[in-house]
């Protein structure tokens, strides 16, 4: 299967086996512009499909409030069917706790310590 990948200012994004992989890069704090750019990249790769997503935030340099809210805006549910967050790092744990307690996304969210378990769950979420 052909593997296309888009690298934005703040993320590396690709799709494999119907799952969107997002790895946050240690470049900078995400701004709203970055959030737009990343969402566009996902749209482009997904070609209109609604897909589950695996998110690795371990190298994150944080994201500001506008960006945080953008990722979990109601319309985000049109593109993302489910989100698995890797929390096998301290930064990951923090984002995991934040998105479960403060700004809940409009799609199912599960936290995983292992990428393998995350992928198993995500495969069940393919719509």
């Amino acid at each position, binding site marked *: 299967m052909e593997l296309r990948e888009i690298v934005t200012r703040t993320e590396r994004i690709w799709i494999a086996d119907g799952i969107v992989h997002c790895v946050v890069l240690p470049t900078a704090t995400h701004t709203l512009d970055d959030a737009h750019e990343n969402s566009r990249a996902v749209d482009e790769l997904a070609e209109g499909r609604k897909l589950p997503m695996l998110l690795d935030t371990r190298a994150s*340099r944080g994201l500001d409030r506008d960006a945080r809210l953008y990722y979990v805006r109601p319309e985000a549910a049109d593109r993302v069917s489910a989100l698995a967050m890797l929390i096998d*790092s*301290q930064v990951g744990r923090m984002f995991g706790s934040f998105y479960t307690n403060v700004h809940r996304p409009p799609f199912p969210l599960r936290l995983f310590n292992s990428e393998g378990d995350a992928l198993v769950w995500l495969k069940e979420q393919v719509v």
Partner: protein
Amino acid sequence: MTDSSGHRPGPDPAADPLDPRIAALLRAAVALAPDAAAYASDPRAAAETALAVVAAELAALRAYRERTERQMEELFNTITAFAALDYDRRALVHDDNDELINAMAIGLNMMGEELSHTMKALVRARDEALAASRAKSAFLANISHELRTPLNAIIGYAEIIREDLVDAGQEALTIDVDRLQIASRHLLNLIQDVLDLARIEAGRVDVRLELVDLRTLLHELQTTLAPSVKDAGNVLHTRVELERPLIHTDPLRLQQILLNILGNANKFTVGGDITLSARDHDEHGRAFVDITVTDTGIGIPADKLESIFDAFTQVDDTSTRRFGGTGLGLAISRRLCDLLGGTIVVTSELRRGSTFRVRLPVDGPQPR
């Protein structure tokens, strides 16, 4: 080279029989970065290597500590800003920071942003609520005023009609006009109370302080109330025991308060005693007067003792029909007492009677 013990010095230090203390030191040094094989062949060299490794590690550790201290300092400064309610400060996130430190910095930043956002939203909501409340009070004050004017006209014209009916020998018809007047007066009182409360809540009530002789004021009250007390079959006793009868207060407001609680006492007591008394009271080096109104009426249930001071609250919902009133009197009285720098409290026993105590500072309210 021969030592004093006559041992032969060897070229190979490993072969050198060592002083046991030195051997112990070398072994201890090597234990810091153990390399058993090297120690066996050359204890000194092994110890040197081990110490070099330890020194390098120490240097790295010191650099790490300094770096961590700097990063912690950054977090500390952020927390200090948050503690001073400055939520706009952000901790820097660096590539060469420890992951844990970065995680804390990112977390602090999110916390600051969320708190800042929430605080601003709360302040905005509070300001809007306050503005709305002031607008409501201002509206009530205005509308009450607008209502009073036509009502006074109605009461006035009813009076004229009544006189005309009497003159025309149509006295039987005056009953209806009397009802009209009673209802209008009740409405006027209600409007007056609403107006008062709205004015107080809109902060539009000024207190006019003057030196008031309480003996005179209480005597006048007694005279004013005498007819209605008699109507209710009650007896009003007055006990003024004041060493300092002169107090700084607003006589009109004080009258309003006392008229209301005396009016209540008279309303909720039938064929009983009402006692109006005044005495000096000192507290925390300040001089006060206590004015109390005690009745032998129906009393107030313990669980209602506080709520009767809320606006529109009466012990019994049927009270308005049975006793009249609006449930605003005590709410107004308490706010007025507040404005005069005093307090109003109540004690009561069901079916035995109630005591309302107004405590006022002799030298007037303290400047706010």
